[in-house]
């Protein structure tokens, strides 16, 4: 922990990290001196957890944005590896390429055969480039749809993991119809005759996110974000000042709690104290339990009913009123 680069530590995590470093130092020293430091360590750990609880009880939407983008946050493949008893990745959209920013395949979770898809970010510099920073191209969305159709053909449920800053907007993606790819996914996902469970595990970045997020059930990790536009982009447009991301993050209502309140997600999946990256195993366990519970609930519902339920869910999203109604209310 102490040796890790400062780039991997958020500002508000620093007091926690300092105590972690202290605890590690005592452990190492005790090993050398052959003393029992457990009392001292327990005291420091208690202190650290208290501070951590305090910090995490008052996170701002901007803090959550940083946590959702945390370089140590578990990504799709990390969670798939931990949650699935068995899985295989399947590749390619059969049209152009295999997009490394969108992964997917078949797998077994809690005894259920499912298709899984999700955006994948990279861990180090080279890996990040390989994964295009989690920004999928048209071929990624088309691969995801191909796999979802595979699931539908064989009556298997689908689990989607959403973690992307945005869809790729390079010239090549535009040439190959990134808009069409996302739009088609939205349309086709609404008609799938199998259960679709969506887990928002990190960044839910606008059209890039919703392109694989039309589900019967939407679960969101506690410190994830789901937004129509990155807070910095919103600030740049509204106030011509991209540094006001924190203000925009608050105004855009991007936290899991907001999304639940607005009826956009169904369930918040709690993260371990200190965030998903502090205990990836526990995160995977909690998320797996939530996914399995929802899978059980959707079992036995007919394909037609699942598609209708999904349609109705999104049909009813949005906020508006009828003006005459307002006049009646006032009079």
């Amino acid at each position: 922990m102490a040796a890790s680069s400062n780039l991997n530590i958020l500002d508000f995590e620093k007091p926690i990290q300092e105590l972690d470093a202290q605890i590690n130092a005592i452990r190492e020293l005790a090993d050398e001196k052959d003393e029992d430091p457990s009392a001292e360590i327990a005291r420091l750990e208690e202190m650290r957890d208290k501070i951590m609880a305090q910090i995490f009880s008052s996170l701002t939407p901007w803090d959550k944005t940083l946590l959702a983008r945390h370089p140590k946050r578990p990504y799709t493949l990390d969670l798939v590896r931990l949650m699935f008893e068995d899985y295989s990745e399947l590749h390619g959209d059969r049209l152009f390429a295999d997009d490394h920013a969108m992964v997917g395949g078949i797998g077994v979770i809690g005894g259920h055969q499912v298709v899984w898809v999700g955006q994948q970010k990279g861990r180090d510099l080279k890996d990040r480039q390989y994964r295009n920073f989690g920004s999928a191209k048209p071929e990624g969305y088309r691969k995801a749809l191909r796999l979802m159709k595979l699931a539908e053909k064989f009556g298997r449920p689908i689990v989607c993991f959403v973690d992307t800053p945005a869809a790729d907007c390079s010239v090549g993606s535009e040439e190959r119809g990134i808009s069409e790819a996302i739009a088609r996914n939205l349309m086709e996902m609404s008609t799938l005759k199998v259960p679709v469970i969506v887990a928002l595990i990190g960044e839910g970045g606008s059209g890039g996110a919703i392109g694989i997020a039309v589900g019967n059930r939407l679960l969101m990790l506690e410190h994830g974000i789901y937004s129509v536009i990155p807070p910095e982009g919103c600030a740049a447009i509204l106030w011509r000042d991209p540094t006001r991301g924190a203000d925009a993050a608050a105004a855009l209502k991007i936290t899991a709690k907001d999304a639940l309140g607005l009826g956009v997600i169904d369930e918040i999946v709690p993260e371990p104290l200190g965030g998903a990256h502090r205990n990836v195993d526990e995160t995977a366990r909690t998320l797996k339990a939530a996914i399995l519970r929802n899978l059980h609930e959707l079992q036995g519902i007919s394909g037609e009913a699942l598609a209708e339920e999904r349609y109705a869910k999104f049909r009813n999203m949005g906020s508006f009123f009828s003006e005459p109604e307002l006049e009646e209310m006032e009079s």
Partner: protein
Amino acid sequence: MATTGWFGRRSKSARKIARQSVDALPDGLWTKCPKCNEILFNKELEKNFRVCGKCNYHFRLKAMERIAFTADEGSFEEFADDLRTTNPLDFPEYNAKIAKGRASSGMDESLVVGTATIDCMPVVLAVADFSFMGGSMGGVLGEKIVRGIELAIEERRPFIAFCASGGARMQEGILALMQMAKTSAAVAKIHEAGLPYIVVHTDPTTAGVHASFASIGDVIIAEPGALIGFAGERVAQQAGVINRPPNFQRADFQLDHGMVDLVTPRRELKQTLGKLLDFCHREVASGR
């Protein structure tokens, strides 16, 4: 993505100069073409479907102008015109922006929807108006598209959508994003019903609208020169995209890359729609 497409296309000073020179012209008689600077006699411009006779620049149309150019005279009947946006996020300055948008555009929202006939064939027509908050898609636009499609299915009418939008309406946050799924899911229903869905991309058709109901029509027509694409220039710049080709995201670029069926000059648009409707219309027309 979201709402950036139309920003920064001309510098502030360029806009100011353009405005000043138009202001200097006698009121209501002349309009200056923003592309070639030709001074156009308004009556001629109207006769030419608001297309510059010199450089073929297609002026952006108000929804009502579009309807007048498209629907049979007097056939348009608006519905769902009572829908108004709320401020679901309590977003700062949103209410003021709505009020300002209404005052400056004369519209209650960024899209009107209604029934009409085109060459005597009944349709449901949805027409966006860029002058109201950049044609952005919030809860009202999404609901109007869906109600339009629902009516089209109920009455067995083709659905025609004229798009003009910078994308999802930022001020409605995640609920605006959900309109992408909501409208696209409704489009699935119209395809299931076997009814025609024709989309016209006008300047600009971008971001959240382009990446949802605008891109999944049976036939997609673009107006010449229209900006059509996923990410606005500023979003792309922030993402580090460089070397955008000169005609990038213009109608002819999208035609070259197979993303639209036709680029149709405005004066031929109604005829083209008529032809397409006639092709798709067999069962539909007999239902009336």
